[in-house]
């Protein structure tokens, strides 16, 4: 087990350093001198020279590369030129908003996905099962940004039930939750489908298990068998599925943040690209990649703990 965990961590480390390399290449490959880009067209040659020196651009490439790597490992992602604040601070400020969105998405997908999958399994082959099946596939298929825009149109613009933009008043939990409902639905909808299919499948498998047969033989009421004995085991695989889900929700949250004008990492990157604020772009992409890799490694290790077969297939 420890060997498996170490192997996963090693792969994670490789991916992160690969990401770092890409970030460096990004700053280096961009057409034009980063210092001139940052200072704008009216800068004097002296100002440019001073900034170049401060950014370390006057040193040879390999030196810049090792500098970049060393400071990144120390958590120093450089300074944002416009406000003169550390990039990491700017990015970290936005992270809680994105995390809230992802937690909201998980809440939606678990709260609706597990019951739907459970009902489908109990009504196996019936009309309800088929309807849930089609619904699940549909929720998986339709892209989240279309869901985001359509739910904005229906619930915020047409019906005006829920707020359309922003993350709510700071400090006011009720208002923040209200602002979270639609964006997190857009983020989590596809995963309602995934989880309901997963729960249905594992529920059907569990219902065949011998301890369920024993419970039946003892004459326990059917609802007790299903909800206390079977469901408890059948939801286990969802935990690991969510590990993958968090990464995907990270991608959808970019769209949700833009559509609902919420603060967050996605919106930060998107806006930084349009004003060519490259340090922010590379910093934010790096932070999300590290987050994504860590979540995936954690999920893989949890799967390894729960299921020894996975461990052996990896080596």
């Amino acid at each position, binding site marked *: 087990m420890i060997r498996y965990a170490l192997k996963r961590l090693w*792969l*994670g480390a*490789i*991916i992160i350093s*690969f*990401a770092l390399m*890409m970030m460096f*290449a*990004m700053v280096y*490959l*961009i057409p034009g001198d980063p210092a001139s880009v940052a200072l704008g067209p009216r800068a004097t040659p002296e100002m440019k020279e001073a900034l170049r020196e401060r950014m370390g651009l006057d040193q040879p490439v390999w030196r810049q590369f090792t500098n970049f790597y060393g400071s990144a490992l120390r958590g120093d992602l450089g300074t944002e030129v416009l406000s003169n604040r550390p990039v990491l601070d700017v990015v970290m400020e936005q992270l809680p908003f994105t995390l809230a969105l992802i937690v909201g998405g998980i809440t939606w997908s678990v709260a609706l996905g597990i019951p739907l999958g459970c009902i489908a399994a109990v009504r196996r082959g019936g009309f309800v099962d088929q309807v849930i099946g*089609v619904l699940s*596939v*549909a929720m*998986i*298929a*339709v*892209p989240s*940004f*279309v869901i985001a*825009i*359509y739910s*904005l*149109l229906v619930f915020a*613009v*047409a019906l005006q039930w829920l707020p359309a933009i922003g993350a709510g008043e700071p400090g006011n939990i009720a208002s923040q939750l209200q602002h979270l409902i639609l964006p997190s639905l857009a983020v989590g909808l596809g995963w309602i489908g995934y989880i309901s299919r997963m729960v249905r499948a594992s529920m059907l498998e569990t219902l065949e298990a011998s301890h369920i047969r024993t419970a039946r033989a003892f004459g326990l009421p059917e609802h007790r068998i299903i909800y206390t004995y079977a469901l408890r085991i059948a939801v286990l695989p969802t935990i690991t599925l969510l590990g993958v889900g968090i*990464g995907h929700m*990270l*991608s*959808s949250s*970019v*769209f949700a943040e*833009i*559509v609902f004008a919420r603060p967050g990492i*996605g919106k930060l*990157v*998107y806006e930084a*690209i349009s004003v060519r604020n*490259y340090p922010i*772009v*590379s910093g934010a*992409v790096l932070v*999300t*990649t590290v987050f*994504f*890799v860590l979540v*995936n490694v954690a999920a893989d290790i949890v799967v390894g703990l729960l299921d020894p077969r996975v461990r052996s297939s990896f080596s």
Partner: protein
Amino acid sequence: MRRIMREPLGAIGLTLVAVVVLSAVFASILTGYTPSKISPAERFASPSLLHLLGTDHLGRDLFTRVLYGGRVALLIALGSTAVSLLVGVVLGLIAGYGPRWLDNVLLLVFDAVKSFPTVMLALTLVTLFGPSLYAVVVVVMLVNVPGYARIIRTQTLVLKSAEHVMAARSMGASAGRILRVHILPNIIGPILILVSMDIPVVVAIEAGMSFLGLGVRPPTPSWGAILNDGFANIRDSYWIVIAGGLPIVLTTLGFTFFGETLRDLFDPRLKGRT
């Protein structure tokens, strides 16, 4: 074909796919307007007999843009999927049949590429090379190739020690010939079904990137770009986002329903894969 139509889901899927494909192919017959023609006098016209889906902020006919946008979406989906498949097959065969160290390196690369969040990958690439059709194709490849290559690799490893491959090798067949004649035909079937199920994902990537302004450049009609135009005017002109989103919904649903039915009918073993 008849078996697909007998399944209700398959019938719906096939019909939707047919509608989308035919309307894209016959776009120029189905509408009298040109997709990029601007007519300021008809800005923000709501849907009517003259403009079935209304017009956008430049007075362009949305029905026409949706039809031509379908061409763009389908061509990109088919083209980039085909390229991904080709690259995936070649890399998978090399990993499966080549030397052990190369296999390990390739596996590491596949895992590394798969570990990046898709949208972040797209944003980085576009920052580097600027928004374009090629950026979309590259993103699709980076998303799809590792998965295809992995499956091909596993299948190749299994077949590598099959009797007919051993026989061919003992008769002095070259590695290229063995891969081409004895291995590839045996593994391409199941992968084609998987690939067809990825079409809706690719359509979503193209539309999503164009929605963010990172994909196809204006004035080329694209469903994602229409959505973006509509999103800016969502409070007054709701029909623009409806026109942009509906084809995306119908296409992704159609291809998904069709693909699921196809897979269940031909290869139930693949069921756990998605």
